[in-house]
Every structure is written in C-alpha cells, then in structure tokens.
C-alpha cells in the first residue's frame, strides 16, 4: 500500500484514533495492528517471510540472552574465587555465536535466495553460453515488501544481544512491532531496537504539537516526491531509455536530474515515514543530512542513507577491524609494507569490502556490484592518498578553509556521485558503460541549445517548476547546513507565517502535483530494495 493513497490515509486516521483512545499500556497494539494490516495489503502471502524473520530472531534473542546471564553469573562466581574469567567468556561466546549464526544465516539466506538467486543464475547462464552450454531455467520469486530493511533491522537486534548491549525482548508481539513498524518498513530508515522499543512502550497519546509537526514533515516529503521527483523522473526515464539519441552533455544532465529524482524520492519518502511516525510520538532515525553538500565521496556516504551506512559500519566494518584475526593480518601488513601504506591499507581494504556489500544490498546484478566497486575504489584510493594530497595543498599554499577549495570539493563530489548513478539507473552494466562512453566520447556541445533540454519530455512550465522546487530544497538544505534548525524556526514563526508556509506547500502538492495534466503517481524507488 502506497503512502500516497486514500486507503493509506484511512488506515493512518483509524490507527491514530485508536492509539489516542487506548490506555497508555496497550497503545502499541494499535501500531502493531496497523503494521500487520499495512503489510497484509501488500500481499498477505508475503507475511510468512516477515513472520519467519520475527520468530527466528526473537527465539535466537532469547537463547543469547539466557547465555549472557549464565556467563555473567559464571564470571562473577569465578571472580569471587579469584580465578581468571577469560576461559569462561570464550566458552560462552562460542555458544552465543552459534545461536546468532543460525538466525543470521536463515534470514540472510532467505534474503539471498529471493534477491540474488535470479541474477546468480543469469551469470551462470552467461558463462555457460560462452562455452556452448545449455540454457539455465530461470524463475523470479516475489520479493517481500521491505525485506532488506526488516532483515537488517532484526539482524542488528541479534548482534546487539551477542554484544550484550541490552536484554532481549520477552514479548514476541512487542518485538514483532519493532520488526514490522509500518511507517518505516517500506523503505526505512533502518531502526534499532534500543532506540525504538522504549518509544513503543511510552507512546504519548494525543499531542497537538507532535501531530502538527508530523503533518508538516510528511507534507514536505510529499512535496519533494510528487512535485520534484516525479517530474525529474520524466527526464531521467527518457535519457536512460534511449541514450544513443543524445550527446554526452545531455546524457550527463539526464543522469544529474536522475540524482535529483532519487534524492527527492528517497528522502521525501523518509520524511513522510518520519512525519507519520512523529504523529504517533515515535521519532525515527535521521536518514539524510544534505548529501549534495558533501565535500568528498566518503562524506557523501555519511550523509546519504545514513542508517544503512551506520549499520555497515557497526556490524561489518567494526566486526572485521576489531577482530583478533584481522589484528594479526593488519600487523603483518604494517610490518611488511611499512610507512603510511602499511598503516592505512588494512582499514582501506575493509572499507572496500563494506562498499562492495553496499552495492550488493541494492541488488545482485552486476551493475550494483560495479556501483559498489566504483565507490569502494574511490574511497579506498582517497584514504591512501590523503597525506600526499595534503602535502600538495601545503606546497601550493592552498588553505584548507579556502572557499575555492570548498567549491571545488563540492563539484568534484557531485560529479563522482553522478557518475556512480549511471550504474544504478541503467538497465544493466553494459548499458551503463555504453552511456559513460557516449558521455565522454561524444559530448555534442556544438549541437546544444535550449531546445535540447526541452526535448527530454518536460515542457518549459514543468522544467521551471522542477528548477524552482529543486531551488527551494537546496535553499532549505543550505540554511540547515549553516547549523540552523529549519523546522524549529518555522515553529517559532508567527502563526500567520506558519499557516502561509503550510498552505503554500499544500497548494503546491495539490496543483503542481496531483492535478497536473497526465500525472501518474509512481512508486517510491527504494521500495524495490
């Protein structure tokens, strides 16, 4: 069920009313009921996947929690007798890891089978054809709504328990709400149990400020989605559908506009999720922090899809880098290579692995793997080259606070991010490479005119709305980048101004969005992941 539908509005209104009417202790039941209905309306048969993820991670959590308590008791006992606890810890860690591994293998196994089996068979078929082999039978399984999001979310719970971060949930229904919470299950943000669970326990009931703020944020997200993203989609779709008819500059422009579409679609959807959740009094994690104002690709990834980046850092990067095996490997590299390379290379290699996995998270096809490698190679390279770059800047007497350097870094990052988008949006890797080749081999500058940009499917009026909408989002971003809180500023403004701003956004959504001619609302892009 889409956020942009009357059915969803009805579900939201009913669950809000129920949540406000119920006593505090049982308000969470209204959210669980709404989550189950929301999910079932996307396909009741797919509930079985969600239920299996919930049940398996809940049970694994109970087992790990029991082992945690037994370990603590055994360690306290040994300490009282003046004995070392290292062996006790090691023995329990082994058992805990086995329980965690069983749950993680099951859930990531299901995710892999549904998401990666088809591309894997495609790759096998490709190789088989080269050697004159037979065709491999292919089948596509329906991908359950939000599977990547809820698998990562429930995996974080299991790993946190393994690390003894908090005690396990004792109530499977409350835990099921954490896994299936409807505002975030479609496209995130990827939540954490220790952050969400206390909020579900203490739902505040009716709160006029929370309701108003939530509606404001949700409408802002809707504005980004249907006024900007859905317009930008027209240009992006045209350029990607028939790139060979365009010169390189137009292709680059089309991919840049796709970047606008993706940002406004994904961050707009997240704003809606966060706004809807805020109406119930539940604050979801921030998922975007003005990514297009990043000064490096690594900085961009700290601002884009933040909850995925944090998940990868906490559960993949740290798990590898702080393991004893990696410690030994790292020491060997340091000793053998020496210098800065020996120091940086071990961590850079793990960074590379993380970006490979981020690419794979988006899908199993070669274009996503290429996208991960693109980001991994650049970020790894820049880690290795940080010291030589600094030396060159010092020699050229370029201050680190130079505005020109800042502008250069912004543009360079924007270009690198845009080039990466060729991989994710093109239908396959060979088309992406073809587009890249066309971009640089045949820029077509001499044939450029205003009509070149107006032949991409959007007329002058819609192009103007797209530019103006993007400018509004950019100005809001720049304002916040200077350490101002835009939402707090609007809340502090006079009521007349607050109403005027809200009314302007609603009117824009209605007349520049829903009621523009030929408008067909599209699905959120990240829903597909």
């Amino acid at each position: 069920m889409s956020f942009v539908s009357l059915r969803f509005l009805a579900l939201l209104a009913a669950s809000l009313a129920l949540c406000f009417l119920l006593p505090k202790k049982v308000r969470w039941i209204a959210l669980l009921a709404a989550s189950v209905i929301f999910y079932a309306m996307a396909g009741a048969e797919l509930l079985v996947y969600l239920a299996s993820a919930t049940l398996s991670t809940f049970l694994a959590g109970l087992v790990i929690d029991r082992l945690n308590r037994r370990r603590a008791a055994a360690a306290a006992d040994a300490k009282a007798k003046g004995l070392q606890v290292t062996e006790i810890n090691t023995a329990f860690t082994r058992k805990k890891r086995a329980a965690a591994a069983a749950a993680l293998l099951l859930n990531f196994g299901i995710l892999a089978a549904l998401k990666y089996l088809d591309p894997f068979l495609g790759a096998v078929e490709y190789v088989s054809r080269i050697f004159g082999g037979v065709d491999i039978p292919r089948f596509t399984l329906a991908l359950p709504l939000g599977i990547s999001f809820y698998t990562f979310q429930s995996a974080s719970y299991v790993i946190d328990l393994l690390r003894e971060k908090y005690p396990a949930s004792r109530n499977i229904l409350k835990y099921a709400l954490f896994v299936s919470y409807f505002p975030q299950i479609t496209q995130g943000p990827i939540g954490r149990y220790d952050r969400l669970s206390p909020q579900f326990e203490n739902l505040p009931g009716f709160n006029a400020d929370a309701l108003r703020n939530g509606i404001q944020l949700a409408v802002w997200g809707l504005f980004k989605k249907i006024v900007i993203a859905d317009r930008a989609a027209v240009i992006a779709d045209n350029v990607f559908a028939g790139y060979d008819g365009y010169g390189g500059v137009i292709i680059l422009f089309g991919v840049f506009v796709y970047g606008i579409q993706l940002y406004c679609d994904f961050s707009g959807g997240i704003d809606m999720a966060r706004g809807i959740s805020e109406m119930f009094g539940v604050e979801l994690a921030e998922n975007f922090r003005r990514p297009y104002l990043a000064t490096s690709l690594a900085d961009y990834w700290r601002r884009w899809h933040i909850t995925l980046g944090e998940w990868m850092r906490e559960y993949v990067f740290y798990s590898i880098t702080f393991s004893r095996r990696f410690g030994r490997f790292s020491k060997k590299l340091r000793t053998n290579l020496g210098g800065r390379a020996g120091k940086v290379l071990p961590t850079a290699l793990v960074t590379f692995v993380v970006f490979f996995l981020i690419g794979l998270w988006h899908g199993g096809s070669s274009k996503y793997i290429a996208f991960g490698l693109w980001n991994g190679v650049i970020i790894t390279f820049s880690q290795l080259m940080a010291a030589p770059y600094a030396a060159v800047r010092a020699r050229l007497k370029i201050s680190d606070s130079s505005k020109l350097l800042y502008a250069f870094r912004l543009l360079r990052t924007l270009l690198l991010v845009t080039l990466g988008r060729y991989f994710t949006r093109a239908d396959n890797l060979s088309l992406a490479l073809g587009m890249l080749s066309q971009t640089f081999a045949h820029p077509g500058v001499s044939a450029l005119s205003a009509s070149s940009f107006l032949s991409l499917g959007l007329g002058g009026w819609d192009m103007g709305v797209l530019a103006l909408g993007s400018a509004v989002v950019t100005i809001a971003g720049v304002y916040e980048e200077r350490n101002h809180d835009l939402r707090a500023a609007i809340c502090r403004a006079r009521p007349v101004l607050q109403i005027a701003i809200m009314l302007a956004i609603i009117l824009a959504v209605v007349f520049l969005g829903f009621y523009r001619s030929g408008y067909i609302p599209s699905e959120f892009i990240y829903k597909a992941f």
Partner: protein
Amino acid sequence: MNMDKILEIIRELVPGTDVAADTLLIEDEIIDSFDLVALVGELSDAFDVQIGVESVTPENFETPSAIASLIERLREG
C-alpha cells in the same frame, strides 16, 4: 606490569613518540583512527582479551591508564 606492556605497544605503533601513563592519546593526536584499529588488535593479542566494538570508545582509549583500566575490566569479566 600491564602499563609497561601498553606503553611498549603504543611506542612500537607510533615510533618516536614520548608516551606516559597520562598522555592524551586521542586529544593530542598521538594516535589516529588507523592506529586505533591496530592498537585494538595488538592489545587483544598481548593480553588475551576480546575488545568488542562497545568497548572501543574515546573514554576507554583516552590515555594509557584508561586502556589499562579497560584491560583490567575485560579480564575480570
């Protein structure tokens, strides 16, 4: 005893630095994030302890003394 070993590891990791028990390792930029990763590996091996992600905080690695307290806590379970 722990302290001598910790100081030896840090001196090996960042040659040419004068480190004492109360040296501010992170604030005075004696070690950076790359050194921290290596330091965790060296300490785990040297003291046979598992230094988990949750223990890698600025407070626990602020000074060699703070590291010694961390090792002690981990050994005690």
